[in-house]
């Protein structure tokens, strides 16, 4: 185990040098066989996470965020689940990796923090042992050495009096403290990618801020990438480098965080932003419900709820992801697909899903890496006018939250 770990460390450096993403997910499909039919929880999702950066997966409940996150190291139950597509972690395809290989990766290279700290700890094992468990699984160390490491990790996770708390049982700790313990357990294997699935949703607002700060500090110290799953755009504004917006198992939009808040390219993203509370308005909700998971609509999945939908939105010829212009002004003038200073991008990406090659093209046509802002909306197609978006209904679009980070 030790040697594997050392190996991985060196690989991390080479991949960073070549600007290869740490994690590249291509056309991920996770479906579940249920009595009501096949549920396509994740239906062709592609995105990347680079070393050290924070990517937010955003969407409503049921949009496939959690299933996407848990598909990475195959934590979803298979069967009834079935995962296809490519999940490349440092070039290694995890969808075809053996169960034993995945166990080596889990905890040591890709760690998870889950939503509800109340249930995520074993109620009858002391928290110190549960942190030490990660260490003991991946390294051949004595119980005493593992305990020492666990206390050290609890200390780094800012658990007060870690040596005493290590002997406490979960029911003796508060929710925020439990989440700190879970963060300590996740970081025990010195992972390169932390998948944080709504780690603050179940906590009080003040505790939420503390946990977000803790994660940010630890991310900086340990240089790990974070895939942060949330439905809270306030949290997104605070933590994200890039954002991937999911809806009904598909990527609706993918953008650097500033670009997304300044110029949302998909009506769904606009709707999410319009629902943000605390900007002098009541928090809203998007009218309508998520489409049926067993029988999703053809075309754009958001079309049935979209006030801007036109007939083409409900057909199969609906595009997957198109670049959104960088300059909102040129956008409004009707050059919906012309990405301002980079005319190359105006070439439609055809209706193909955003595979690795296409996304790399996009990135290199911009100012550098990760500037690509793409949305799966017909209004960004070749013959469409993005001004349509403001034509009939105007979402109450939130103010760009540039200073929020």
């Amino acid at each position, binding site marked *: 185990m030790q040697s594997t770990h050392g190996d991985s460390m060196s690989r991390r450096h080479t991949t960073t040098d070549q600007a290869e993403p740490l994690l590249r997910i291509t056309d991920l499909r996770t479906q579940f066989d249920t009595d009501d039919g096949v549920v396509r929880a994740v239906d062709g999702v592609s995105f990347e996470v680079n070393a050290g950066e924070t990517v937010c997966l955003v969407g409503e409940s049921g949009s496939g965020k959690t299933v996407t996150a848990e598909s990475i190291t195959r934590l979803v139950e298979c069967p009834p689940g079935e995962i296809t597509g490519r999940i490349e972690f440092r070039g290694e395809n995890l969808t075809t990796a053996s169960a034993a290989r995945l166990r080596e990766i*889990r*905890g*040591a290279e890709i*760690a*998870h923090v889950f939503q509800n700290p109340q*249930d*995520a700890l*074993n*109620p009858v094992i002391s928290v110190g042992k549960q942190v030490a468990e990660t260490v003991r699984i991946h390294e051949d160390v004595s119980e005493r050495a593992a305990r020492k490491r666990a206390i050290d990790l609890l200390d780094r996770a800012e658990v007060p009096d870690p040596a005493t708390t290590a002997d406490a049982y979960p029911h003796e700790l508060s929710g925020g403290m439990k989440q700190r313990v879970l963060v300590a*357990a996740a970081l025990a294997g010195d992972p390169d990618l932390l998948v944080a699935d709504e780690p603050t949703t179940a906590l009080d607002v003040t505790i939420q801020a503390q946990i977000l700060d803790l994660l940010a500090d630890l991310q900086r110290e340990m240089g790990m990438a974070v895939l942060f799953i949330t439905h809270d755009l306030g949290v997104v504004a605070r933590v994200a480098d890039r954002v991937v917006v999911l809806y009904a198992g598909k990527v609706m939009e993918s953008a650097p965080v500033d670009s997304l808040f300044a110029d949302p390219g998909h009506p769904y993203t606009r709707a999410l932003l319009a629902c943000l509370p605390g900007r002098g308005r009541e928090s809203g909700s998007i009218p309508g419900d998520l489409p049926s998971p067993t029988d999703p609509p053809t075309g754009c999945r958001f079309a049935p709820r979209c006030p801007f939908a036109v007939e083409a939105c409900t057909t199969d010829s609906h595009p997957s992801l198109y670049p959104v212009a960088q300059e909102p002004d040129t956008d409004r003038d009707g050059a919906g697909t012309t990405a301002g200073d980079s005319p190359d991008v105006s070439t439609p990406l055809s209706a193909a899903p955003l595979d690795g090659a296409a996304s790399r093209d996009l990135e290199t046509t911009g100012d550098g890496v990760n500037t690509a802002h793409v949305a799966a909306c017909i209004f960004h197609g070749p013959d469409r006018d993005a001004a349509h978006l403001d034509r009939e209904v105007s979402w109450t679009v939130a103010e760009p939250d540039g200073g929020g980070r």
Partner: protein
Amino acid sequence: MGMEWYVVRRVAWAVVATYLAVSLTFGLLMVTPNAGADVAAAQAAASGQDYDAVRERYLERRGLDRPVEEQYIDYITNILTFDWGYSFSQGEPVLAAIGDAWVYSAQYFVPAIIISALLGYGIGLYSALNRYTPTDYLGSFVAYFGISIPNFWFAIVLILLFGVVLRLLPTFYDSSVALLSVQNVKQLLMPVVVLSTASVAGQMRYSRAQAIEYARSAFVKTARAKGASEWRVLTRHILRVALVPLSTILIADVLAVLFAGSFIIETIFQIPGLGRLALEAIQQKDTPLVLATTLIPVFIAIIGNLLQDLAYVALDPRIDYGDR
């Protein structure tokens, strides 16, 4: 409200429960017509003596004509001093008869409980982790078979098949066989199988349900996300937590089998154990022996529950000592 105080109170409660059970039994004895006196009086009346005079003499000789409170104090004292009376049906003191009998009961009872717990938990956990597979369905079938089938019928079928047709095993228990011998193992095989079939099924269904509940729990997902192997997840996480309710069920199940199962099995296989002793005592209206064979399972039940309460201390740190 620490652990010591909890233990003290559990033990105290066990003592109180024992006292209540013993007193209740005394009450029942008082309101029951004395079978021995009736029999003696009827016999005397047949040979021309006065029915009532003989009956009174019989009661007087045994001190049963004294005031209730005096008898009650005597009764409690006798139980506490292990002076449990003389069994006329066995021709020896009650405690000696029980001392002879329990060895035979324990011989099939202890292996049956161990087998049913190991097999029941094993199949249950395996089924839980391999749900909706042929093995799971087979496990469920075996469980329902075990629950549905009457003990006595299953025992008779086994005797017919292995004892009469195949002639592999003895058809009844021979108490003259040495304790540690192949022959003894062979003659205990069928009683153990019959008793554990009934009990395995229950353990299996409960452990499967418990394991399914915990297999989906968030803390098991956390363990998997740490890279824990399936075996580690099963033993360190699922089973460890499931043991809390499962141990409760095991104790209850053991007692149920002890009360009901042993009567049938010992009768069919002719094992001279506690079940048969109790049955003979009842049939022959041997009051001191009936009393003893009633009280002993009650004591075992109370001790079992006490052990269970104490086991919680080790099994479940969430136990609230102040609340119980």
